[in-house]
């Protein structure tokens, strides 16, 4: 049985008409049982918005990420960045932030303590 995990996507008003901003809210635990299915949701989102997609990943309720989900995060970052977009992460729990730091992802993906700070960073980087 798959471990409970959800991904919800929320639109954010953008300051620039060329820019799409969305908050992707993760909750639960991303592990082997559910990570592929959940990752597809993010891939679909990226495919539907091929240019200038800016994603704020809200990790406030994400309790656990396995190695595969970190691999997906790297891949999403690559795809979005190639097309002029950006991914930032907000409200990460200390254990997950620890993993992201050791893996080196925080050097690529900026992390913010709050959603507002993440939104501010996205809107001012355009």
């Amino acid at each position, binding site marked *: 049985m798959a471990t409970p995990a959800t991904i919800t996507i929320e639109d954010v008003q953008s300051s620039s008409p060329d820019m799409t901003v969305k908050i992707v809210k993760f909750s639960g635990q991303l592990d082997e049982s559910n990570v592929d299915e959940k990752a597809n949701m993010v891939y679909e989102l990226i495919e539907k918005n091929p240019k200038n997609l800016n994603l704020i990943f809200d990790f406030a309720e994400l309790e*656990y*990420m*396995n*190695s*595969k989900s*970190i*691999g997906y995060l790297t891949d999403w970052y690559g795809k979005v960045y190639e097309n002029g977009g950006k991914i930032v992460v907000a409200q990460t729990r200390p*254990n997950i932030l*620890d*993993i992201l*730091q*050791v*893996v*080196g992802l925080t050097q690529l993906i900026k992390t913010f303590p709050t959603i507002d700070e993440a939104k501010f960073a996205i809107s001012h980087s355009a």
Partner: protein
Amino acid sequence: MNTALLWIISVLLALIPVAIWLYILFGDKKNDKKMLSIIFSGGILAVLTVFAIQYFWIYVPEIDPFLWIGNNITDPTYYYVGIFILVGIMEELVKQMMVRYVDTKTVLIQTVNDSIRFSLVAALGFAFAENIVYFKTVMTVAPIQEIIVTFLFRSVFTACAHMIFSGIFGYFFGIAKFTIDITKNSHWEGKIYLGVHLISKVFQIPYAQAFKEYKILQGLVIAILLHAVFNYMLQMNQILPVIALVVAGYLYLKYLLDRKAGNLILVTDISEQRTSTIGKKDSEVVLELVGMWFDQKKYVDVIHVCERLLERDPDNNVVKLFKAKAMDKLDPENPYRKILSTIFSDERGELERNTIAYYRKKKEIEGKNIPQNSKEKLFRFVEEKKKQENETFKIDL
């Protein structure tokens, strides 16, 4: 010629290749000469042990396996194969026993390559003692040309062959000694050893213990077979294949000794171990990722992640192994490897090379005088901890 003089000349002749080989193997490195002498003497003792066993069989012929083979195998090919396998078993076991004995007393082997190097020295001691007997015998009966040929051949090829067989066994013994770290590393790499898994299930023993037994057996079988093939080809006067075998073995050993992973110090003094600042579960997630990237040949990424993980967990041998293996896999001409090679040197400081010496030195500096037998207590403590870990650590495949 006087018998005593013959023995003296034989010893002197046998010393020449020893000096040359020791210089080739250890000439440019800092080494504990006392320890090398002990292992070398162990190699000599190994020959005496083999002679003693053979002497014992003269008086108890019922248990003499050579006699049994002679009486029961009439086909000359099978006869020689049987005899040479038996010789291989005896000689390889006694040589390795000497290294193992010294290791249990002194924490001699701290890296996989230590196990190879000390096995080479034991083999050199063995070849030295054997050569004395051969040289003396040849000088008694043969003309000068034959003496020269015997001297050159045994000095170069026989000594080298003994070192190759023992060195390969030493490599597998080293892997077996550091079973816990190496099986954990293999687990994260996603490697499955079906033979080990089978041994573990059949004998109802932990996976790590099965891996250890498997590696020792694998090393012994390879060493015995190579030894038997070498002796058989010599018996059949197949000199070119003998030379090819020795050259191939030498290149293989050189490859093993050049690997970064082989030079990693894997003996851990638990009393000196630094605390990890990353959670166990988080560390496992990262290791799983490192294993995935290693499998995908993302070696530079693996090195980067390992470096960051080692900042948080400095004494994690599994991470060190991943880093060293990734560096081994990188193209030698890769500039990143060249830069890292200068930082991640093979050479270790004298203190670092011997954890027990390091421990003593540190305590002495702190003003605590440790009696000599504390070394042994500390060693037992380290081994006990490893044994406990060995018993509890099991990989689900």
